[in-house]
């Protein structure tokens, strides 16, 4: 496994800011120094031991109890055990001299051990869940990794359910997540880089890519932005996404997220970079392009024809979710001649006695709907279902009877709501929820022209938006016929493999062609 760690560079940085304190030869001095750092931290445990034949040698074991849950903390014994086979003799007869010699020479130990000699390193290791062993008369300490915190076990991700395909989802542990990915992609081309970010949290952040598949300029841009993040506290991958994305105020997410290792692997194979943060299951896939948000992981587990049709359904769903209320407003207030006369009469009939114009009616109903959506997210599950029944009644029936909304508007709003759930990525669906309202205002003031202005502005934004320097609207923005096909249809795997082989040629052509 090619896991490169950047500890060394970090240590250098710390040296710059504050000079390091050497550990003392006297055990008591060390203990007071550590206690001075961890005042009021009662989960730091100090255990003193005596050893050697006369029990006159002293040792100190320090660790942080809360993150070393599964360990029996008597590592001193282990230290001695390591020595016995080499030095021959009783564990009780081990002397300090032998210990020193053994660890400085890096003898074979049963567990990985770090020999450290700075006070800052001791505190750092303690917080990372190491057990630190110190000896009287030796100005170095031994640190054993014993980190253990209860984590959720690997289960099916709640938000990305697939009918066919693996049921594994990522969890809140970075190493395990990387393991899930690595076990599916057994290639030495898979490069993984881990760094620590954040002044207080020191979150472990990793990114991985498949060498040779990922475009060089994208990787360069990613690494540039990745290195710019240093002191920001990162609790979730979304923090990371926000710090790295091209346009923070855009309604469109510029990175995809997933909780499925198989999706992450397929993204890696497609030349994407993935980023993970320790403590959260979300995997970030960058760069994310507009059209990719319409693709669902299960597309490739189902039959081509069906997947292609479903994908078209999703695209239609997005268009409906974005523009149906505004189209309805434009038609019913400005372009009534477009509606077939019988339907127009029916609409007029239902709208009779409505106190509000179509825009206000639509805004009220959409507001109800959004409110209901937010409320059902926050409520505890047993109450949630009750609220949704009441909400459905209020939106559906009561509002019609009370004369707030016409039945046609309820149909429009309900269809809009359902359509907005058809997009596989929740974050992407929110863009249509945001953009819907300005479109409605445009349609209500200038009809079709207002709608068109709105669409041109959205189109302009999408075209000028970039994700990690790549054009966001790619196969549609600069039209690339070969790839555009994949947007609407899920092409058969045999074709894709052929395309994969050509991809090198293609990416070179793109570099040449520019824009």
């Amino acid at each position, binding site marked *: 496994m090619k896991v490169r760690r950047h500890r060394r560079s970090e240590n250098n940085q710390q040296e710059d800011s504050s000079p390091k304190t050497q550990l003392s030869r006297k055990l008591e001095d060390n203990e007071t120094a550590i206690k001075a750092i961890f005042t009021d931290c009662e989960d730091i445990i100090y255990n003193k031991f005596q050893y050697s034949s006369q029990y006159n040698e002293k040792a100190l074991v320090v660790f942080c109890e809360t993150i070393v849950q599964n360990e029996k903390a008597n590592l001193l014994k282990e230290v001695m055990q390591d020595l016995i086979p080499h030095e021959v003799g009783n564990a009780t007869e081990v002397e300090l001299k032998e210990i020193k010699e053994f660890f400085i020479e890096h003898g074979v130990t049963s567990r990985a051990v770090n020999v450290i000699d700075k006070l800052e390193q001791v505190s750092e290791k303690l917080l990372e869940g190491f057990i630190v062993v110190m000896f009287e008369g030796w100005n170095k300490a031994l640190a054993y990794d014993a980190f253990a915190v209860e984590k959720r076990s690997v289960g099916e991700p709640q938000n990305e359910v697939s009918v066919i395909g693996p049921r594994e989802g990522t969890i809140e542990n970075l190493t395990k997540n990387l393991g899930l990915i690595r076990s599916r992609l057994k290639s030495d081309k898979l490069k993984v880089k881990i760094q620590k970010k954040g002044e207080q949290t020191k979150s472990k952040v990793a990114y991985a890519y498949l060498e040779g598949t990922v475009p060089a300029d994208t990787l360069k841009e990613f690494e540039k932005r990745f290195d710019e993040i240093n002191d920001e506290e990162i609790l979730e991958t979304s923090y990371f996404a926000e710090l790295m994305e091209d346009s923070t105020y855009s309604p469109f997410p510029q990175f995809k997220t997933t909780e499925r290792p198989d999706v992450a692997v397929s993204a890696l194979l497609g030349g994407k970079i993935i980023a993970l943060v320790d403590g959260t299951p979300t995997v970030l896939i960058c760069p994310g392009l507009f059209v990719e948000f319409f693709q669902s992981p299960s597309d490739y587990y189902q039959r081509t024809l069906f997947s292609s049709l479903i994908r078209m359904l999703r695209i239609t769903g997005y268009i409906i979710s974005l523009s149906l209320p505004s189209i309805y407003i434009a038609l019913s207030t400005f372009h009534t001649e477009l509606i077939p006369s019988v339907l127009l009469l029916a609409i007029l009939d239902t709208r009779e006695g409505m106190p509000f114009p179509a825009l206000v009616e639509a805004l009220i109903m959409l507001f109800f709907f959004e409110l209901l959506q937010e409320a059902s997210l926050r409520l505890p599950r047993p109450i949630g279902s009750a609220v949704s029944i009441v909400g459905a009644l209020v939106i559906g029936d009561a509002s019609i009877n009370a004369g707030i909304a016409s039945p046609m508007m309820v149909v429009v709003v309900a269809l809009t709501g359902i359509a907005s759930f058809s997009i596989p990525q929740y974050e992407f669906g929110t863009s249509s929820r945001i953009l819907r309202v300005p479109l409605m205002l445009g349609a209500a003031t*200038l*009809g*079709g022209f207002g709608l068109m202005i709105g669409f041109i502005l959205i*189109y*302009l934004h999408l*075209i000028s938006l970039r994700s990690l320097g790549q054009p966001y609207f790619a196969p549609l923005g600069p*039209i690339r016929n070969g790839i555009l096909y994949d947007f609407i249809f899920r092409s058969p795997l045999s074709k894709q493999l052929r395309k994969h082989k050509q991809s090198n040629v293609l990416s070179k052509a793109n570099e040449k062609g520019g824009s």
Partner: protein
Amino acid sequence: MKQIETINTLQMILLFQAFITGSTIINIQGPFIGIAENGAWISILLANGLGAVVMMIVLFMYERYPTLSYVQYTKVLMWKPIAYLFGISLALIVILFTANITYGMGQFLTTSMLKESPLYIFHFLIIMVASLTVRQGIEVMARMFHGMLYFLFFIILSILVLNITHYHPEYLQPVLLSGWKPVLHATYVGIGFPYMDIMYFAMILPYLKREKDKPFKRWMYAGLLLNGIILAVTIIASIMVFGPMVTYEKFPIFQLARIIEIGEIIQRVESVFGIALIIGTYMKITMMLFIINEIITQLFDLSNKRAFVFPLGLLVYLFSTTSFNNEIELGESGLIMETILAVSLGFIPLLIVAGRSLVKR
């Protein structure tokens, strides 16, 4: 944003097509048929041929100075004050014609679809959107218009195809009802609008990134010819559907969309098509605004191009709301003045500059 933006050959050809077809597709048929009646399609092809002459000169100059725009090579070739005179006069006519196009679009909307809305709202919105687009630069424009042009062609094709049951080829006869004079008159109009516009395109040409293996000039001529054919076909289709009545229609292509009727479902869909056709005008206005911005910034060597987009947009907006009191004035400006102004203030200076470059050799 990158300092030097470039677009590839295909994008340049498509930009040219968007530029030349853009607003003409809704505006040209009415006046042409009004003047030349059944011979209008001959006039458009004749004007198209004259457009090829303009294009020849523009491309000739482009071959000599591939990295310079019209304003830049004028400054190189001519005596400074003359260069400024040419540049300013070009800027003025382009501003006027952009205002003209904007007013034409507003007119189209207020007379056909949104009859009660005031003109200035349409002008304001379209120029605002166009300015925002220009600020994003030529690359974004090229990408955007690529898809939009396909959409526009799709719309035109569907109008033509969905009317297939309404065509009466016998209406095309007689072609020259009142002899050649009206045909030549319409050709005169066509020289000013749209074909003199090719000259302004010389401001965009330097953005082309040359690819040696791809023929560029040939495709530009082909694009020009395609434009002529599309316009001629829409004129012929209008005549075939409306017959002698067509001369009374102001926007025949819009009327073509109006009479589409398929079953009980697809009928009176002109609003959809009308609004789709506006996209052409939007593209044209955007590119004209871009050209104005290029002329002004290059003429006075201004480094920050983006800063001048909104002021110039405002200028065009003010022009568009104040230049014309009514349709008749617009018609006068478009049908009579435009050709004179474009030839005298645009084409003749271009000829002089081209002649100077020949002499200099």
